[in-house]
C-alpha cells in the first residue's frame, strides 16, 4: 500500500483547469519526483496532497488520511517546503526554528537541525537579511522540524549555488536512508535524474509518464550522440551499421546519432579502419531529452 495515493485528481481555478484527471502512487521510503514545465499543475497537485488546497474532484490519501478533511492530523506527520512562502522579515533564524518546533508533536533537536542545514552562522540573523540560499536552507530545515514521515519539497534547490545543490542532494539521500519518504517538485532535470527513484512527468494537468529516470529515457528509444574528430574524409561505411540513424560532418568533426550499443559498435568499426580518435565520446540521452520528447516543449515553458 502506497504512502500517497492520488486518484483522478482535478482542480480548477474559476475557468482555468490547473489539474485535470491526475493519478499516481508514492511508495514508502522512495524519493518521488514531480517534474514538469511551469504551469503544468505540479505545485497545485502537491498543495492538494498536503491539504493546502481543496480538490474539485478525485480522491487523495496520504498516510491513510484524507488531506481535505483530516488536514490537522496530517500536518503533524508531514513536512512542507513551499514555493512563494516567507517569514516575518524581522524574525531571526533560531527564533523561526524555535517557533515552528513549538507546533510539532515530535520536534527534532533544534541545534542538530541548524548544524545539518549549515545555519549555525545565521542563528541571530533576521529573515530579511538572509541570502537566497540561506532562506532556502532555512525553509528546508523547517520542513524537517516535526520529524515528518513524508516530506514535500517544492523546488528544493531554487537559489542554491552548485556546491550547495550537491550538498543538499546528499542530505536528502541521507534523510531517505532514515526512512522518510520524499516528494520532490522540480523543473531541474539533473535534479530529477540524480535524486529521484521514480519520476512523474506532468504536463497540462496530467501525468504523461511515470517511471524510474533511466527507464523513462530507455522507453522512449531516444538516440545517443557519438562525437569524434578525424581528418579521414569518407566515413560513409559507418552509416551501414544497423544502430546508426544519421551522421553529420562539420570539417573534421563527426556526429553520429544512433540507438543501442552505438558507441561500442562505432568504436570497433573505427578501429577496424585504422582510425583511433583521442576524443571519441558519447552523450547519452538525459531526462531533459525524455522530457522534451514527452511534452514537446522546453521545461521552462
Amino acid at each position, binding site marked *: 500500500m502506497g504512502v500517497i495515493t492520488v486518484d483522478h485528481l482535478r482542480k480548477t481555478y474559476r475557468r482555468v483547469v490547473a489539474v485535470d484527471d491526475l493519478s499516481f502512487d508514492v511508495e514508502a521510503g522512495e524519493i518521488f519526483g514531480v517534474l514538469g514545465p511551469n504551469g503544468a499543475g505540479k505545485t497545485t497537485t502537491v498543495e492538494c496532497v*498536503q491539504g*493546502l488546497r481543496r480538490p474539485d474532484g478525485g480522491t487523495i490519501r496520504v498516510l491513510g488520511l484524507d488531506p481535505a478533511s483530516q488536514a*490537522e492530523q496530517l*500536518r*503533524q506527520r508531514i513536512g*512542507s517546503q*513551499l514555493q*512563494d*512562502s*516567507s*517569514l*516575518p522579515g*524581522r*524574525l531571526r533564524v533560531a*527564533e523561526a526554528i*524555535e*517557533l*515552528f518546533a*513549538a*507546533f*510539532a508533536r515530535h520536534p527534532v533537536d533544534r541545534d542538530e537541525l541548524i548544524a545539518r542545514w549549515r545555519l549555525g552562522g545565521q542563528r541571530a540573523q533576521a529573515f530579511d537579511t538572509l541570502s537566497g540560499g540561506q532562506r532556502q536552507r532555512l525553509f528546508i530545515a*523547517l520542513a524537517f*522540524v*516535526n520529524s515528518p514521515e513524508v516530506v514535500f519539497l517544492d523546488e528544493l534547490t531554487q537559489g542554491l549555488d552548485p556546491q550547495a545543490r550537491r550538498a543538499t542532494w546528499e542530505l536528502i539521500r541521507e534523510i531517505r536512508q532514515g526512512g522518510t519518504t520524499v516528494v520532490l517538485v522540480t523543473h531541474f532535470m539533473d535534479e530529477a535524474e540524480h535524486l529521484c527513484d521514480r519520476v512523474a512527468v506532468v504536463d497540462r494537468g496530467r501525468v504523461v509518464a511515470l517511471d524510474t529516470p533511466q527507464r523513462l529515457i530507455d522507453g522512449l528509444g531516444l538516440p545517443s550522440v557519438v562525437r569524434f574528430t578525424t581528418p579521414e574524409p569518407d566515413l560513409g561505411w559507418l552509416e551501414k551499421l544497423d544502430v546508426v540513424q544519421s551522421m553529420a560532418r562539420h570539417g573534421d568533426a563527426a556526429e553520429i546519432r544512433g540507438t543501442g550499443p552505438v558507441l561500442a559498435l562505432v568504436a570497433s568499426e573505427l578501429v577496424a579502419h585504422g582510425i583511433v580518435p583521442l576524443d571519441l565520446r558519447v552523450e547519452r540521452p538525459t531526462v531533459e531529452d525524455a522530457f522534451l520528447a514527452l511534452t514537446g516543449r522546453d521545461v521552462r515553458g
Partner: protein
Amino acid sequence: MTMHGYLALTRTEFRLFRREPFSVVFVLAFPLMMMVLLAAVFGNNRADAGKIQNGMLMWRGVTPANYYTAASVAVIVAALGLMTLPITLASYRQRGILRRFRASSVSASTLVGAQLTVAFVTFVAGTLVLAIVARFAYHAALPRDVLGVIVALLAGTAAFGAIGLLLATVIRTSRSAQGIGLMLFFVLWLISGTAPPRAVLPAGLRDAGSFLPLTHLVTAVQNAWFGFGWAGTDLAVLTAYAIAAGVPALWLFRRY
C-alpha cells in the same frame, strides 16, 4: 490550538512588534505625543473645566490634561486595531507567511489569539506609560477604578481586534491596509472625542461620532478613570461591535 504553540507564537509576535518601528511609533509614541500636545494646547486650567458650550460640559467636568490622558488610552487601541493588526496580517498573507504558518499546524485561532494577546498587553503597557507621564507632567489623576479601565480595555481589544481582523480579511495587500487603516484612524480620531472634545463639533459630526466604536471606548475608559462608574451602554456597544465584526471575520479567516 495547543498551549505550547500559542505561547511560542505570542512570544514571537511580541518580538516582532517591538522590532517594527511603524507600530511602535503609531501605537505608543503617537498617542503619547498627542496627549502632551493637546493638554498643552488647552492648558491645565481648572477654570476651563466647567465651560459650557453647545449645552454640554466641554471636558466632561475634568481638566483637559485629565481628559486627554484617558482619551489617549483609547487612541492606542484604535491605532493598533485599525492599523497595526490589518497591516501585519495583510503583509502575512501577501508574503506567503500565512501559507507557511498553515502548513505547520498554526491554526487561525492560535494566530488570532496571539495577535489579540499582544494587543491587550500593549494597551496595558501604553496605559501605564500615559498615566505616569501625565502624572508627572500635569499632575493628572491616576485611574480611580483600575478594574474598570481593564474591563474597558478588554472591550476595546475585542471590538477593535474584530474590526482589524475583518479589515485584514477583505484587504489583500499591506499597502492598501496602510492607506485604508490610516484614513479610518484619522477620521475616527478627529470625531470621536480623542482630538477636539465632541462638544465643540457641529451637531452632524457629533451625531455621526455617536455611532463610532472609538467614541464609546473613550467614554468607557474615561468613566472608569475618573470614577464615574462603569459605562454600561458604551461597553455594550463595544461588545456589539466585537460580535458584528468578529463573527464574519473569524468565519472568513478560519481557513486563512
